[in-house]
């Protein structure tokens, strides 16, 4: 087991390095650069000589490989450099944004799971075919709703028209309701679909009939047998869904004027703030790797058959 863990951690480090390198190379390939964008901004009225001077000061006239090594060493020491746009250390900007995004994303994910579970279970156990049909149509409806549009509609309806929750001001909790919903709904869709499908599949398994033959009630079968088996494929999707969570938070945070990593991303991309973008790439990769590591480690807990396989490789 420890060997398995060490292997996985090794893989994770490799993935992160690859993400860093790919990020660095891609950002190099973009036309223009942050210094050009920032200082050639007509509002500053700087001459090309002055811009060249600034570029020297930032060390961005050094050859790419030198900058690569320099940046990589910086990252290894936890120094992500300075945001060219705001001049703040990138680490500070991440530290400012991360808690808000983590809160939003976690709640968004939990609510998505809640919505997905509700849809999946109600549809799987609904006695009326039309309810089932309607509920299973919901996910495709959800997934085709653009986050941006959903956010605006939620704000218009619940905040501006019904005045139920403020978007401006309000308590921390009030400020979370609509963004969390906006983020959760599109993500809940694939989860609900996978969960509903695996519920159906598990329902059809012979062991379910065996449990029923022992005299178990519907509820007993559902909670003690079907749910846990249906969770496995859903868990895989949940790990993958994390990517959508990142993308969703960019839009959600912008629409709701929330601070966070998503907002930071949007701004950094707008002005090509290379150090910030690179740090975000590595941060996202880190979280992605961690989430998937957790998912992988959860599998054997949920499914003893996989525990055996993990044991074999160890």
């Amino acid at each position, binding site marked *: 087991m420890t060997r398995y863990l060490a292997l996985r951690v090794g893989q994770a480090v490799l993935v992160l390095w690859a993400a860093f390198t790919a990020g660095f190379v891609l950002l190099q390939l973009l036309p223009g650069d942050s210094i050009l964008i920032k200082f050639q901004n007509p509002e500053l009225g700087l001459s090309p000589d002055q811009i060249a001077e600034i570029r020297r000061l930032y060390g961005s006239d050094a050859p790419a490989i030198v900058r690569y090594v320099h940046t990589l060493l910086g990252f290894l020491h936890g120094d992500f450099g300075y945001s060219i746009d705001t001049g703040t250390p990138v680490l500070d900007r991440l530290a400012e944004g991360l808690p808000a995004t983590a809160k939003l994303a976690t709640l968004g994910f939990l609510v998505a799971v809640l919505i997905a579970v509700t849809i999946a279970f109600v549809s799987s156990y609904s006695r009326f075919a039309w309810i089932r049909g309607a509920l299973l149509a919901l996910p495709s409806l959800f997934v085709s709703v653009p986050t941006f549009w959903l956010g605006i509609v939620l704000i218009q309806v619940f905040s501006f028209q019904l005045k139920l929750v403020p978007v401006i001001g309000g308590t921390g909790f009030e400020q979370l309701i609509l963004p969390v919903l906006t983020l959760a709904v599109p993500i809940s869709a694939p989860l609900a679909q996978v969960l509903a499908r695996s519920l159906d599949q598990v329902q059809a398994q012979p062991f379910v009939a065996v449990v029923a033959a022992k005299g178990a009630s519907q509820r007993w079968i559902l909670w003690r047998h079907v749910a846990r088996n249906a969770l496995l494929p859903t868990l895989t999707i949940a790990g993958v869904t994390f990517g959508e969570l990142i993308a969703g938070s960019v839009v959600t945070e912008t629409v709701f004027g929330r601070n966070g990593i998503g*907002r930071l991303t949007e701004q950094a991309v707008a002005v090509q703030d290379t150090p910030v973008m690179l740090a975000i790439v590595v941060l996202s990769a880190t979280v992605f790797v961690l989430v998937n590591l957790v998912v992988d480690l959860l599998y054997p807990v949920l499914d003893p058959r996989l525990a055996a396989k993990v044991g074999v490789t160890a």
Partner: protein
Amino acid sequence: MPRTRLRSTLRAGVAALATIGLLAACSANAASDAGDAGQPVYGGTLTYLEHQPPSCLYLPAAGFYPNGGVLNQLTDKLTWQDPKTLKIEPWIAKSWEINADATEYTFHLRDGVTFSDGSPLDAETVAANFDVYGLGNKELKLPVAEFVNNYARSEVIDKSTVKFHFNKPSPGFLQGTSVIGAGLVSKKTISLPYEEQCQLKNVVGSGPFTVANQVVDKEIDLVARKDYSWAPPSFAHQGRAYLDKIKIIVTPEDNVRVGALTSGQADYVRYVQAYDEATVKAAGYRIYAEPTRGVNNGLYLRPANSILQDVNVRKALQAGTDAKEVVETLFTDSYPVATSVLSKLAAGYVDLSAQLGYDPAKANSLLDQAGWVRGADGIREKGGRKLQLSVFVSGPQPLSKQTLELVAQQWTKIGVKLDVRQADSGTQAAALKDAEKTPLVHSMVGRADQDVIKSQFHTRNRDVLLSNDAQLDRLLEEQSALVDANARNAKVAEIQRYVVDQGYAIPLFEEPQVYGAAPYVHGVSFEAVARPSFYDVWLSKKDK
């Protein structure tokens, strides 16, 4: 109330809304407080929605509009420019002398002014500020300021007297001391490196408000300085600001900002899109369309481009562009049609509307003369080359994409194809200095001084034309060195004529900053280029 009076007020002219200053104060109150008889009250919190989060707050680099809402409340300047008369009035400097050729400026400072960290605002601090603004500081990576030209050095005469020396005449400097970028910061702030000065927490000024709390990218809370007592002497209101607190909340989505205002969640918002103005007004809220008094929103044609090097082609495009249609189709009365390169309210403005009329027949004949013949697809050709130009959508300009697309439609009528390209800022920045990749640009500059025209066109400033025209540079430099205001205005008029005659500019409209505010928000005022000042603002709604 007040609907009709409000409308008539608006009709009376946007300038009236923005007035401040000793004489103007009464009229300003009369304008903005239309119908709300009553004494200003102290207290309350103003919720102000900003379109974008502040960027770097190093003052000379902080012209970005979202910074204005913050910085103008935090810092004071040496002088105050009356936005209506554009006259420079005393503020931190209670008086000043300028030598005959405008190479020496001596300022006498007000006593007892302190920064919010308790340090005094004295001659030494002012000298330190302007040494950085005038010369930059390479060690600290601090760039020089656009509004200071020919700066040589400072000289501290005594505790409250400071003198600035210039290498060449610098008549624009006095106005320069009144702009947002000339905000005075503590000695500690000005000696920080660029990255540090960029950050709000490090900006220590002497203004009527101080920062209480900041959530980066989301919210800035300002609180009134109780001991503030150095407003420009011309103001009717002296002492501390009326408001206790200002919550500046970043709300990027246009319709969220407007919706929050009209649903009572916010009091005051910046950047109301033209198409939202009616919604705001219909809800009983007020629109403040503030002129920016500078170079108009327009298209700027680059003579270095291989197609646009021909003055006839440039003139043809100018004649073939219908600015009136642009405004009527896309904008509102808040966006007056341009009548010159400069805004009607800019210093040295001259009315060139006669030269700028829409005349497609003239455009067609000019292009015929230039040898561009219509091809089968209606697009003109010359020597196998199509008369095709491209332009980038300009992020900061309101409805830039729609504007450019409409212009492109107009140009097809004269046989010119305009490709409207949307690109990220990196691509744009990389192509900006190449007249072939960027044959024309969509831009504007706001600054209430004659020098604004130099900022836009001079090869060592923004150089929007990538100019290869030595004569233009010479004219701009002459203007910049003229000390006499009348002579300077005359030169500015000459430059406007020259730019239009050469077909360098296709002015479209006078770009305003459009704000929306609730009816209970009084004392709304702006500085000369439409950045808000909250010093005079008070709320009649008790629960706010």
